[in-house]
């Protein structure tokens, strides 16, 4: 009975193929087919019997959950290294500010303008220092 097979396979469509999945689908399909055969013996039409069996399958989320735990590798958790991120921003902004300083004093020593870009750049290390502090607590 293709309809049952398609239905059950569809329920597990989001799970990667594996021998475990195949055997689960196969067993569920078999049980449902037996149910259909039984219901038809009791006088139901095939259409009705299949419908009833599919409704009686119920919720497969519990099966899926316990499938995943056994052999699926846990998804790599994306962790942010706040300390590294902070140091990077400090070093990088120091270099940028250094560049402005150099340009300012080398090319236009009589006009102090490097503070403007410095303020703009400082937001970056400030942000990362505070998110580092936040994370530490």
């Amino acid at each position, binding site marked *: 009975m293709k309809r049952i097979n398609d239905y059950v396979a569809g329920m597990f469509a989001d799970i990667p193929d594996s021998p475990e999945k195949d055997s689960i689908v196969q067993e569920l399909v078999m049980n449902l087919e037996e149910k259909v055969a039984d219901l038809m013996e009791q006088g139901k039409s095939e259409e009705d019997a299949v419908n009833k069996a599919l409704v*009686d*399958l*119920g919720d497969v989320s519990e099966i899926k959950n316990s499938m995943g735990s056994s052999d699926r590798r846990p998804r790599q958790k994306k962790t942010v290294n706040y300390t590294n991120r902070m140091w990077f921003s400090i070093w990088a902004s120091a270099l940028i500010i250094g560049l402005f300083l150099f340009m300012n004093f080398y090319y236009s020593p009589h006009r102090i303008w490097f503070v403007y870009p410095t303020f703009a750049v400082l937001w970056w290390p400030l942000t990362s220092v505070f998110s580092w502090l936040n994370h530490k607590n």
Partner: protein
Amino acid sequence: MISSDIIRGHLDAIILRLIIEKDRYGYEISKEIGERTKNTFEIKEATLYAVFQRLEKNEYIVSYSGQITHGRKRKYYKITEQGRAFYDEKIGEWEETKRIIDLLMEGKDEKN
């Protein structure tokens, strides 16, 4: 149709009990549950399978393929020693629970 949490909490023991009586296959168990309760309780196939999975993982039951019947190779489940022990434990717990609920919910006195 009753589908209470209390029953759900004891499905493992209920199914173990059926497997203790004799080796059974999937649909046989859901049919048996329907028949014994005169269809006041029905187990969903997915729920039943989740229970099998759990029981097998805990080594309370083992499965084997039976002979081909009606063109199908049925998967039978068989109780293990651990399964039996777990069942006995659950029965003890259930007796105790029943006693407490009777006592508290219906005010039944133990002496009567």
